[in-house]
């Protein structure tokens, strides 16, 4: 009952004595110079968690300020807070979140490899990430940036009074970290699959990260060039984007969104991968329409490059450009819809249990569906002319990025926690956190759709009195959400020391990563496994090992 019949493999002992956490030493040095993909994944997880709380603290202050207009902060401080929130959450949490933690840890395990193709590049990628993160924090501490995460010109290049160039340098550096990760994943997936692990036997998680990597490698250089041009205009007064210097401000938006729209898919595709692992496991059924799910990921990563100007329907693009980009945006909604239908169909005639990872996954499907459907609203030309730059857009992308991606991140964290740490977490606490996050999230962001349609603009430190009631709902929801996000920090931390031993495969899951001890040994498999079957060979009966 494994994906992958691992030839000649004896039953694992309950506790693996030699594993990646103990082998090779436990000194700080052994961690900071490690080339083991699993240890680098842990380094990433720790640093990403830190930045998640930094970005979350900014979000908390933003919601606090918006309870009682004109709020508690000066406009300059408020503008720095939302810029900090956006820059940190986009580049230092969402983009690296699933690929660099779970992707790093799991891709070699899932394809039956010993490590990623380029272990040193992998470590370099983490150092770039951390260096960039500290540069961003430094820019914040010495005075901050007030451009918003979008750095629109000519405001960012000539008018902003913040430390724009430092922030640009940080984003540039973290971009290289992304490129290295993407490159590593692509080569690993092509070259290092175990015998018998054909493309159509790859778990969807690997496919999703592969699609993500393609975007990282192709789109991120455009961001790098764009940021360098902004810095050149700001420092050297070279006229590129500012019309006063003979430049074109819309050129910046085209270049920026040519990266940043595909980047949205960098942020959500790995989430699709996590959900496609969890749902079959807890429904005890093969994933419905495996090939459709796989190819819709690839379709998204390709079409994702041709929808960027839908961010610019009121920016001054031509009427015809608007018509084309809106149509393409409707086209890209189709593969996302396909996935939702396939996950739902996977539940049909299943044997469904509701452990914490499944609760996160079901929450993900619900929130992502709302986020995706409101994407149809903002992709709609006339509708977007009314709501662009309002809280409707804010709510829409938070449903995708937070409701979707962060739920998937937590779902994956719980699902693979026993594999990574060898310990089980307290199930009921995890279920409570999943429910708190789901309800807190909806209470926070659903009112923002209404606020947006009413005309409440983004990036306002203060607003007219008729918007206050909905803002209070939103801020109340944010406090529930904050508790939901803080809870796992405590019970997962507790489980590291007191959690029950997990064993190799606590979920009776298929997939090669479950066929090796928890935590896995440094070289992942004692013997390279041979794969003989497609993934997700679950059957809707109680499994013998389903204790």
């Amino acid at each position, binding site marked *: 009952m494994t994906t992958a019949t691992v030839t000649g493999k004896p039953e694992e002992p309950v506790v693996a004595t030699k594993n990646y956490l103990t082998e090779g030493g436990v000194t700080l040095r052994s961690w900071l110079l490690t080339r083991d993909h699993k240890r680098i994944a842990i380094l990433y997880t720790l640093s990403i968690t830190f930045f998640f709380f930094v970005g979350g603290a900014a979000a908390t202050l933003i919601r606090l300020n918006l309870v009682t207009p004109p709020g508690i902060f000066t406009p300059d401080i408020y503008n720095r807070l939302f810029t900090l929130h956006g820059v940190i959450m986009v580049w230092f949490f969402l983009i690296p979140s699933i690929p660099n933690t779970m992707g790093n840890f799991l891709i070699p395990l899932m394809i039956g490899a010993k490590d990623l193709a380029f272990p040193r590049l992998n470590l370099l990628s983490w150092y770039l990430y951390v260096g960039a993160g500290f540069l961003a924090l430094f820019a914040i501490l010495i005075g901050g940036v007030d451009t918003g995460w979008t750095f629109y010109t000519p405001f960012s290049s000539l008018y902003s009074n913040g430390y724009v160039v430092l922030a640009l340098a940080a984003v540039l550096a973290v971009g290289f970290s992304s490129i290295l990760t993407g490159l590593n994943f692509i080569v690993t997936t092509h070259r290092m699959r175990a015998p018998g692990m054909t493309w159509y036997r790859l778990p969807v998680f690997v496919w999703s990260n592969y699609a993500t990597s393609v975007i990282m490698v192709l789109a991120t250089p455009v961001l790098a060039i764009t940021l360098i041009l902004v810095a050149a205009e700001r420092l050297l007064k070279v006229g590129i984007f500012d019309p006063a210097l003979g430049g074109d401000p819309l050129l910046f938006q085209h270049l920026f969104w040519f990266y940043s729209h595909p980047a949205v898919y960098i942020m959500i595709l790995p989430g699709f991968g996590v959900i496609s692992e969890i749902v079959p496991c807890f429904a005890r059924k093969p994933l419905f329409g495996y090939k459709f799910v796989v190819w819709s990921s690839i379709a998204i990563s390709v079409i994702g490059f041709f929808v960027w100007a839908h961010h610019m329907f009121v920016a001054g693009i031509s009427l015809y450009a608007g018509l084309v980009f809106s149509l393409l945006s409707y086209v890209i909604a189709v593969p996302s819809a396909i996935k939702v239908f396939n996950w*739902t169909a996977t539940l049909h005639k299943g044997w469904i249990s509701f452990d914490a990872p499944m609760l996160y996954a079901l929450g993900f499907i619900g929130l992502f569906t709302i986020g995706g459907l409101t994407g149809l609203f903002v*992709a709609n030309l006339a*509708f977007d002319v*009314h709501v662009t730059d309002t809280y409707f857009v804010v709510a829409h992308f938070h449903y995708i990025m937070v409701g979707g991606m962060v739920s998937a991140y937590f779902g994956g964290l719980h699902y693979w926690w026993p594999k990574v740490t060898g310990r089980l977490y307290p199930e009921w606490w995890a279920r409570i956190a999943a429910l708190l996050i789901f309800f807190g999230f909806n209470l926070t962001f659903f009112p923002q759709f209404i606020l947006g349609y009413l005309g409440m603009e983004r990036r306002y430190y*203060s607003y007219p*009195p008729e918007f206050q009631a909905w803002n209070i709902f939103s801020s109340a929801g944010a406090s529930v959400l904050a508790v939901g996000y803080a809870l796992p920090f405590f019970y997962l931390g507790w489980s590291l020391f007191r959690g029950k031993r997990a064993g190799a495969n606590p979920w009776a899951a298929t997939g090669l990563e479950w066929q090796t001890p928890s935590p896995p040994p440094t070289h992942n498999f004692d013997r390279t496994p041979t794969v003989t079957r497609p993934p997700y060979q679950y059957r809707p009966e109680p499994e013998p090992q389903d204790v």
Partner: protein
Amino acid sequence: MGSLQLLPPSASAHAADMDWLFAALLGVSAFILLLVFGLMILFCIRYRKGSKVERGNRLGRTWRVEVAWTGLTFAAFLVLYFWGANLYVRIHSPPSDATDIYVVGKQWMWKIEHPGGQREIDTLHVPVGRPVRLVLTSQDVIHDFAIPAFRIRQDAVPGRYETLWFTPTEIGEYRLFCAEFCGTWHARMGGTVVVMEPSDFQRWLDSQDPGPSLAQEGEALFSSYGCSGCHGGASTVHAPKLEGLFGRPVPLEDGRTVIADDRYLRDSILMPKAEIAAGYPPVMPSFAGQIGEDDLLKLVAYIKSLADKTADSAERPAP
């Protein structure tokens, strides 16, 4: 603290159309949402672990189902697309009888100039039932002129003219916002749109100190910036005549033909070498950085006012 409002005031013909589009989008979404959530909840209850329902006969080949739901979804999406695109084309096609009002955004105020020369800041007075076309630009960074009660907005981009038109249908006062982040006081860059009876509006216009009209001011600037030295009727320099120019096609040196619109006039003042009229030596200096947005608008308004004149009738000496 206000009550729980659900819809903004609706004060233009377009606003009503938009609310119908909103209703359609909500309808389609609600249908898909209920379908997905309904099935999810149904499956989760019916096929929960341990329940004793029949689980045999599972769907083997999936592609028929896949093609069906992909096709149906895309068909529904296309309907929504065309609906929205149709409205979008309409809000980009101002009627020919619309009154032009000029709007300049700058950190952090909206400067508005009526064709009669009346000026206001952060307040826009308009008559009910008459189409109005705003010509928007910015003096510094990108701003965005947003009127939720009319369900429209448009970025004001430095170095460009963008337009936005509407026909107000309800008398009243509506909020005006800047919707593109523009710096420290972005949230305070807004004001009021006042929709009035046409007679009240006329009274309001008359009560304002009109000053010279935009075109009249432009005429004065036309001399003071030295434009008349070459483009004036008495000039000996071989420069294009501006009478009867606006709105007509202009053949260019490189073989293209452009329409002499706001954009062309503005670009020709700031970047005269970009689009050289055929048959004229490229001798005009650039005025980039020397003429502010306010003055540019006036110069363009003056050149527009010459649209109905012929070169002969303007052969008089400049005032």
